């Protein structure tokens, strides 16, 4: 069954030039500037696609502006399982996501941006799949459909086919206060299981990994063959690193940096200080993947791998591992490093070798963020 959560203030801060809509104060300022949320309008487009394929479908949702109103307007039958407070806030979204999963929703459509995705992930966990209908200001997380119409198409296919394959995708959010001071610092807040429609008649000219999981496994396999005895590996966060740890036979802290030496995890969830003391014991390298859709290698979600740590690692500090698709998804934009130390960043800028599979690597450009936006766009 479908679930629906609308963040009725999603995107309100965008047109108001407030770089986001998180928090009651910003929402009030946006309202004062005459801004209105387009969440309901965008939700209606998506649900319209669902309704035309499956008229009168019952949708588990939240009372009023958080779902029931727009579901009814689209010609679907709302089944209210959660009551928000007045005015609504982030906790309502988290509570609603939990209530929808408990009520048996298999796919939760949510309307909003990264903040909404983060609140949904907090409530939903891995109990149901989720898909974002894009209506926010910040949408760094790869959990949104490309358009409301596309989201509706996926939801309709989900109903028609009784489910679809899902990808585990990262939920990222930036600190809006920092963003207002022109700093983009997305952090990893969790993951959602996001459905996708596989190709119907995929042209088979070349053998390709059957799915993203296979691509991640291939990249991890390539990385595993680069692991040498006697070297401490500082495994950063992310699904690819978790898969690498699995191949190496060690447990992995999902969002932390773990130190692995000769097939053993010597520290879990290490701090910067712990990393520095480990590096002092012998040769070491940091192993990182491409975080989210923006191409950060360092400085986003893995701040433990600081400038001091990078300096301590020496001339060849990084082993970068990512499925080829992560590079492709950058659409020509460079990989980014932001350790906070311009000299360390400059030392990493240029080109870096990315392990994409067994015996396959790609050479890809790396920029420091002050150069972000330069070059390598199609």
């Amino acid at each position, binding site marked *: 069954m479908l679930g629906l959560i609308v963040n009725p203030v999603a995107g309100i801060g965008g047109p108001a030039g407030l770089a986001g809509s998180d928090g009651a104060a910003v929402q009030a300022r946006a309202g004062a500037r005459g801004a209105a949320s387009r969440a309901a309008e965008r939700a209606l487009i998506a649900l319209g696609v669902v309704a035309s394929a499956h008229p009168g479908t019952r949708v588990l949702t939240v009372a009023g502006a958080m779902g029931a109103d727009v579901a009814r307007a689209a010609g679907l039958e709302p089944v209210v399982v959660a009551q928000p407070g007045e005015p609504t806030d982030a906790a309502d979204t988290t509570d609603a996501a939990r209530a929808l999963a408990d009520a048996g929703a298999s796919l939760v459509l949510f309307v909003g941006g990264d903040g909404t995705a983060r609140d949904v992930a907090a409530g939903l966990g891995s109990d149901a799949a989720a898909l974002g209908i894009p209506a926010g200001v910040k949408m760094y997380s790869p959990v949104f459909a490309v358009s409301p119409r596309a989201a509706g198409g996926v939801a309709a296919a989900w109903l028609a086919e009784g489910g679809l394959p899902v990808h585990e995708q990262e939920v990222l959010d930036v600190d809006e206060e920092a963003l207002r001071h022109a700093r983009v610092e997305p952090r990893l807040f969790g993951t959602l299981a996001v459905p996708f429609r596989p190709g*119907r008649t995929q042209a088979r000219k070349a053998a390709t990994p059957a799915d993203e999981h296979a691509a991640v496994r291939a990249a991890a396999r390539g990385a595993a063959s680069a692991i040498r005895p006697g070297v401490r590996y500082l495994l950063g966060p992310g699904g690819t690193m978790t898969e690498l740890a699995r191949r190496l036979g060690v447990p992995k802290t999902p969002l932390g940096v773990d130190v692995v030496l000769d097939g053993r995890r010597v520290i879990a969830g290490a701090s910067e200080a712990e990393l520095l003391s480990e590096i002092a014991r012998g040769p070491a390298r940091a192993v990182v993947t491409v975080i989210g859709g923006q191409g950060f290698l360092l400085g986003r979600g893995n701040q433990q791998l600081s400038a001091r740590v990078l300096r301590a690692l020496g001339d060849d500090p990084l082993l970068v591992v990512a499925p080829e698709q992560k590079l492709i998804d950058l659409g020509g934009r460079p990989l980014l490093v932001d350790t906070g130390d311009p000299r360390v960043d400059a030392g990493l800028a240029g080109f870096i070798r990315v392990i994409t599979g067994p*015996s396959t690597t790609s050479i890809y450009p790396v920029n420091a963020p002050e150069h972000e936006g330069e070059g390598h766009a199609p």
Partner: protein
Amino acid sequence: MSLPVAPKPALRRFHQASWDEPIIFELSTPGERGVLVTGIEPGVRDAVGDVVSELPAGLRRQAPPALPEMGQMRVLKHYLRLSQENLGADLNVDIGQGTCTMKYAPKVNEQLIRTPGLTAMHPLQDPADAQGVLEIVWQTERMLAEISGMDEVSLHTQGGSAAIWSNIAMIRAFHEANGEGEQRREVITTIFSHPSNAAAAKAAGYDVITLYPDADGYPDLEALKRALSPRTAAIMVTNPEDTGIYNPAIKEWVDAAHGVGALASYDQANANGILGITRARDAGFDVCHFNLHKTFGTPHACGGPGAGANGVSAALAPFLPGPRVAREGDRFVVREAGEQSIGAVAPFFGVIPNIVRAYSWMMALGAEGLRAVAEIAVLNNNYLMKKVLEIPGASAPYATGRRRIEQVRYSWQDLFEDTGVTSEEIGIRASDFGMHYWTSHHPYVVPQPFTLEPTESYSMAELDEYAAVLAEIAREARDDAETVRTAPHRQTVHHTHHDDLDDPERWAITWRAYQRKYFGDAAA
């Protein structure tokens, strides 16, 4: 008064034939025969003896094969019906298979290859009795040597990827012969080179390094310099790339590779845009290959056999696959593969019917004609690009605004973001208009890709018609996305289920395997 000939609408009201035709095994009637074979005459039997008993027991069938039993007329109908359920190169404007290079394979060449002088030949025939066909092989090799600038050419391989495999196998043998086999373990390619280069290098045991385009969408020379080292065995690149973009610094690429002692291998499978204009050897390449079925007017033959040609510099010539045809005085002889040769990659001398077709195609055109092929192919492509880019939602990422050579990898990303309709869905919908396209090699570096390659074969009217079909489908995507998404509507087959092809437990490539897997052992 109505016209005796009804005017035709701007877009064809195409509909594919659909015969609900059973599998031929299901049409079998026990005892029915197409040909009644006469018994062996006593004189023959006496002279030849019992042939079957001389076969090893393991090769002898215990029971006759379970072939369908049918009269000739029913067989004819069966296959004609199946042929009507196809959308082949001789029916549609087949420009949607970009990088495959579908072009006209002149029908007169079919007559040539069916002459008894060719059909009765055997590869083990005494060369004294095969001078004509050996000369055709030799002459064709010399023409391809002239076209590529290379010193020696072999027509031994049976397809493009086999030729690319031969390229890397020769490179490996070259480095091993120089004592650098252990040291040179890496091959560099670009993300828009044909993926068979990366695949062949990997199959040959190399580590493959892939480069991405630079800020302007061209192959990135700086990235290449970063990747090159004494470990590099070769660069293996396609040019123009699969995007249709020609690498303007190709000479610098080759020089940079040579600078670290690596070889340079040129994928010219599709040389349609450069015939008579540029030559691999003039840019310094050591190795190149052609696909006769892409550039030289021979059919693709439903996935094979095609025909490959490997061209090499004099330094690489000892490594060419063999056997080879050589000229001694005014005679043509067969030489077995030499000591340094990579040996046989395919049986005998190559796919003779395709070599004869390509020979005929080149001889009919002459040098000026070959150059005209390239010029028309490039003009056709740039004419079509202008028409396609006028369609709202279509774009040509990388080197934006620059001309392309013989093909373009376009993108429907803008249309997809507006409508949710994918390139794949548009390609399927195109078949409702009697056209089609495939999208691109995987991975999809260009988002929502489609790759069009008009070649020299298609007329302006046909290109206009093709562009009009795309424009109409793009309009449908905006006004009536459901029609596109649920396409095809006028085809023999609706949707195919690729899961059946991806799962070894389910795939069935013979009738017997199908019976066994889906109906149990008893049925088989």
